[in-house]
């Protein structure tokens, strides 16, 4: 114990930088992140004990029980970090890539001088792993959940070619301003080949990018809750004409999976895989502007929320105003609500973010920023 104390003491006094990810591997991350700040302020022999206990247990979750900390991550729930991870290769997507994957599509200039931006989206049926070892028969846009994040600029002409390779009829319903026939609604637009697109069918949605903001798209075929819960949704970002300040931009789609089909979610997450960013923290730079495009598409539950530790952010509801509405550390979103968060991390270290609906957090919607 004495030696352990010395080790931690030196690490703490030599500054925050020593508390990088490698040092904390094996699961003391959560307690460790708070440690540098608390270290000189609070009587902390017990805390050291807890941290060392968690380390000694190697993330197995055992051996630390006398401290009251059982999870890797010291004090928080999560999947065993020593256990196997989700097979991202088999899934065909990785939440660590999705979080920064902004799909600008292909552009060309129309005769009028306007920019035409085009994407292709295909819906298919696909089994995905939503938590280590837990498989879910999803419906996917372009092989991933959430679907591709479509990024464009206000005023551009958008063209989205949709092909339905799924065994069920689907649509793409965009949130935005567009004519009825482009709304991706069964029963509306069938006259020009739109509306509900049957298996093997296709349709091209075309409309102007408006208004600027953080929007989304999803399937609107019936029954709606099933078509959303199965994974047919994605973020749709329209930049203002003059663009936004340079920032490290992240896309977070808050979702969940009803794996046993009882109309309640078993696994909660951002970008599909439960606890993914706990196991693979999102690395950001100290002092750099971080912009989070946040969408709640969670089915079955009334609300969802986002909370970041040890920091505050400016919140732009729906991203349609350039003035933030609030400076806070927790926001709540109903289904389909979304917004833009901007923040800078003044200190290095591990900072948790999670749903402050703690039930969701402990069922997977929980992760870390690793500030370097």
């Amino acid at each position, binding site marked *: 114990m004495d030696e352990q104390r010395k080790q931690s003491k030196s690490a703490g006094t030599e500054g925050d930088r020593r508390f990088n990810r490698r040092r904390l591997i094996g699961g003391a991350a959560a307690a460790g992140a708070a440690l540098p700040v608390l270290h000189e302020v609070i009587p902390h022999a017990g805390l050291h004990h807890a941290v060392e206990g968690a380390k000694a247990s190697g993330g*197995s979750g055992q051996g630390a029980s006398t401290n*009251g900390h*059982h*999870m890797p991550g010291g004090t928080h*729930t999560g999947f065993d970090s020593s256990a196997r991870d989700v097979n991202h290769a088999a899934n065909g997507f990785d939440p660590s890539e999705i979080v920064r994957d902004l799909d600008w599509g292909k552009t060309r200039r129309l005769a009028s001088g306007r920019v035409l931006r085009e994407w292709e989206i295909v819906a298919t049926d696909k089994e995905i792993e939503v938590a280590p070892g*837990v498989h879910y028969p999803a419906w996917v846009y372009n092989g991933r959940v959430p679907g591709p994040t479509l990024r464009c600029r206000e005023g551009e002409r958008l063209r989205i070619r949709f092909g339905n390779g799924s065994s069920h009829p689907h649509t793409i319903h965009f949130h935005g301003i567009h004519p009825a026939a482009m709304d991706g609604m069964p029963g509306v637009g069938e006259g020009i080949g739109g509306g509900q697109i049957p298996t093997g069918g296709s349709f091209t949605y075309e409309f102007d990018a408006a208004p600027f903001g953080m929007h989304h798209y999803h399937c609107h075929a019936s029954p709606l809750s099933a078509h959303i819960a199965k994974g047919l949704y994605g973020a749709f970002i329209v930049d203002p004409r003059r663009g936004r300040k340079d920032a490290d931009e992240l896309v977070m789609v808050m979702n969940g*999976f009803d794996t046993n089909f009882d109309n309640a979610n078993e696994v909660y997450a951002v970008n599909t895989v439960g*606890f993914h960013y706990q196991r693979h923290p999102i690395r950001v730079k100290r002092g750099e502007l971080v912009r989070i495009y946040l969408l709640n598409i969670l089915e079955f539950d009334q609300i969802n929320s986002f909370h970041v530790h040890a920091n505050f952010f400016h919140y732009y509801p729906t991203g349609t105003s350039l003035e933030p509405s609030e400076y806070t550390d927790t926001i709540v979103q109903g289904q389909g609500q979304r917004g833009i968060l901007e923040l800078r991390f003044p200190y290095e270290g591990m900072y948790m973010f999670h749903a402050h609906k703690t039930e969701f957090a402990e*069922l997977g919607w929980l992760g870390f920023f690793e500030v370097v």
Partner: protein
Amino acid sequence: MEARGAAERSPLAGLPAWVLGLVPLALIAAAVAAFALFGGPGLGERTGPPVEEVAVERTVLHPGEIELTIRNDGPDSVTIAQVAVNDAYVNFSGAQQAIGRLGSETLTIAYPWIEGEAYRISMLTSTGATIDHEIPVAVETPEADAGFFGLMALLGVYVGVIPVALGMLWLPFVRRIDRRWIRLLMALTVGLLAFLAIDATLEGIDTAAEGAQAFGGASLVFIGALASYLALSGVDSYMRSRGEGDRAQGAAGTHLALLVAIGIGLHNLGEGLAIGSAYAVGALALGAFLVIGFAIHNTTEGLAIVAPLSERPPGVGRLAGLGLIAGAPAILGAFIGAAAFNSSLAALLLGVGAGAIVQVIQQLLPAVRDEQGRTLYPLSVAGMLAGLAILFATGLLVSV
């Protein structure tokens, strides 16, 4: 005559009988093997997702840890992918591989449970199905050490051995009373035993519903009952055939008392099982009331043993032996119930107890007959009803 002639002419006539017996068996084995080898030709793929059924057979709680022994009692193999306790995913070890049909695994869950609170454990399988298990009241499971076994032994002695021994003290009284009253006592015993048989059967069915159903569930109770009935009948007829030369009334009485003691002993095994398992999950207050209740309840069992012994009382050693046969299984039951409770096994044992009692009742009935050879006459019926009433009333004193 003509049929027989045909058989003699058949080409199989030269073969010994055992070969003829084996031929169909060999053909069945070959057919099954071929069917398995070709993967059930013509049946095609099964439709629908796998059927995943898992029963929790045993729950053990230690500080900061919950241990579940689970058994796959469905047709398909099951992989436990994640475990959540009260809607929070937790770390667990064990059951990392798929569990085959009837396979059993132990999951060790790291969780800081709080005494007295309720927990719902959800096991998420690889297909996303959930298997829920409730812990209504979290209480630390006693360690199976010497002190624990000592306590269980003491409990077994209190509720099994001592009351039965006390009940047997009615022997001098039984010896002095008139034959008519002996018959009444025997009828009373029949009533007592009938109550115990009903009680054990219902308890067994209840218990069977809790665990894995693949082993037969409630049918185990009846299979156990039938097996013990047949076994005791066999033992009985064996003892009768050996004692043919000595058909004195007294010998028959001793023989009957032994059968009654065995039946009651098997019943007390089930009773100990219930006590031990209730104690292990913290559902049993080890108060004086429980012991007194059981003592009164079981004292009547002692009377049942000595009632057939009115003619020729056996020696003290023999009496003690009968008392131990009837009472000591409560100790064994308490051990099993507290340390290795398994609802399928418990249901089977309770059924064995019930079947044994039915057999004993059958043995006792001749001793109830009056001079006219009637079994059901006013006095005997009154005795049987009194027996039922006594155990019903004393049964209210205990609840496990």
